[in-house]
């Protein structure tokens, strides 16, 4: 145990995700020995993000304005919506530079153990977006685990009656990897979802 405010700092840092007691201690002592200007920059960045960042009114992605960068961009295809669990999934899909449609962030996945049902996710907002007829395809890009699959099935059943095209990204082998290193479940899925080879 350290004295007073040093311990307070370590405790606060230790509450962050992915930071254990040892790392918290290291970060705290790094901050103590750092230049005051550097530390002020960090403090500023943290308070700025808390003050200025909001969630997009349309898709719930993180943004500094009412609408996020993607929802504001007229070049993005409004007829395709990619549904993801978290805002960080938007960044992951954006990195591919393959997808030119828009997003919808649910804010989690259905998980009764954690008490999360469809009403706790932004499902109603999604259904409102679909009602104006501009959207023709929904891509359900929730995580490929049990809860993500359940959420995707739930949404698919809800959306299908509207006559929209509902798709889900393929599960399977990582590109550039070796077949022998794939685990049985992934390999099994990849075999289930195999496709005809056009030559």
């Amino acid at each position, binding site marked *: 145990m350290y004295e007073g405010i040093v311990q307070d700092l370590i405790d606060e840092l230790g509450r962050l995700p992915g930071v254990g007691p040892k790392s918290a201690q290291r970060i705290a002592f790094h901050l103590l020995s750092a230049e005051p200007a550097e530390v002020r920059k960090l403090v500023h960045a943290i308070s700025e993000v808390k003050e200025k960042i909001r969630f997009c009114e349309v898709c719930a992605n993180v943004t500094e304005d009412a609408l996020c960068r993607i929802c504001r961009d007229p070049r993005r295809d409004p007829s395709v919506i990619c549904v993801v669990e978290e805002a960080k999934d938007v960044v992951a899909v954006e990195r591919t530079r393959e997808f030119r449609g828009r997003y919808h962030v649910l804010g989690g996945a259905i998980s009764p153990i954690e008490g999360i*049902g469809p009403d706790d996710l932004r499902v109603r907002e999604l259904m409102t977006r679909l009602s104006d007829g501009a959207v023709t395809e929904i891509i359900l890009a929730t995580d490929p685990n049990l809860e993500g699959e*359940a959420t995707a099935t*739930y949404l698919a059943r809800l959306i299908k009656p509207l006559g929209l095209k509902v798709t889900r990204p393929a599960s399977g082998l990582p590109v550039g990897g070796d077949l022998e290193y794939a685990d049985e479940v992934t390999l099994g899925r990849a075999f289930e979802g195999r496709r005809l080879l056009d030559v």
Partner: protein
Amino acid sequence: MHLELLSLTDFRSYSEVEIQLVPGGCAFVGPNGQGKTNLVEAIGYVATLGSHRAAGDAPLVRLGAERATVRAGLVRDDRKALVELEIVPGKSNRARINRADVPRAREVLGLLRTVLFAPEDLAIVKGDPSERRRFLDELLTVQSPRMVAVRSEYDRVLKQRNALLKTAGATVRSGKGDLRTLEIWDSHLASSGADLLAARLRLVAELGPLVEKAYDEVSAGGGAATMNYKCSLGPEAALVPDRDLLSAQLLEAISAARSQELDRGVSLVGPHRDDLVLQLGPLPTRGYASHGESWSYALALRLASYNLLRESGDTGMDPVLILDDVFAELDAERRQRLARLVGTAEQVLITAAVPADVPEELAGARYDVMAGEVRRVV
């Protein structure tokens, strides 16, 4: 396959021990409480990543030590492999194969195959249905490591669904809840349940005749041992190992049980409610079989498992047979018969309290176990 080396560090009562093993019979002999079973438990752990007598990993680590290490040298045909496992309670195990780290300890599953018979197995015959489900599921995972994933997926679906059922009952009764989320979990339960059920049905069909034969050989005409899979789908269900057919029947049964499930807040349909009914002649073993009959039945289940793995496995993949404290419970005649039955196995590991308990046919190499030390007797 057989084991040529077993080395333990801080495992159970052993601080450090290294044993060279030979094909054929290996007998560990010593008074009670000297650590014979700890040796076979360690071998079982390499094969299944679990203990046959402790639920968690904590009891496996020697009192006062932080971690336990098990090293096993395997020989299959002429090829050798060294498997090393580090057991740290509360953390995930670390594994090395041939001195190279592997990303998940799970990778070692399937390298060593064992069939272990221990006094605890009496519970398969006499105990709750959960013991018999575990017997089936463990054998399935030895046959195909993929079943570990199927099993854990099913358990996860079950937990999620039960959590939902607990709250759904109240919301539905109050009239504002909707059952659409429950239906999602119904379909997941049906599809992963069908996976597990199909695998169990296939296994029971293969195992049944082998159990009958093994029981007959162990008991020399003590009546016909048969087994029936009792399914929560009811007696009219078509129990064929077809995933789609089973999944459809499960869905139907789930919706039929809807109001009952909502009232009680638990899933009442699925392979987690099933049982394997063991019979001797016309009577179920549970409640009717004598101690000796139950013991023979448990032994027959393990011998049948051994024969099944031997028949269905690749050449050179014969499991290592482990008989923990078996012979003391059998009379001289049954001892001889059992010894002849297992005499053809590539390797049989036996524990016994006194040398006289080890039948001559199996007295290959003898090891004295005393106060945490193991010495080969020559």
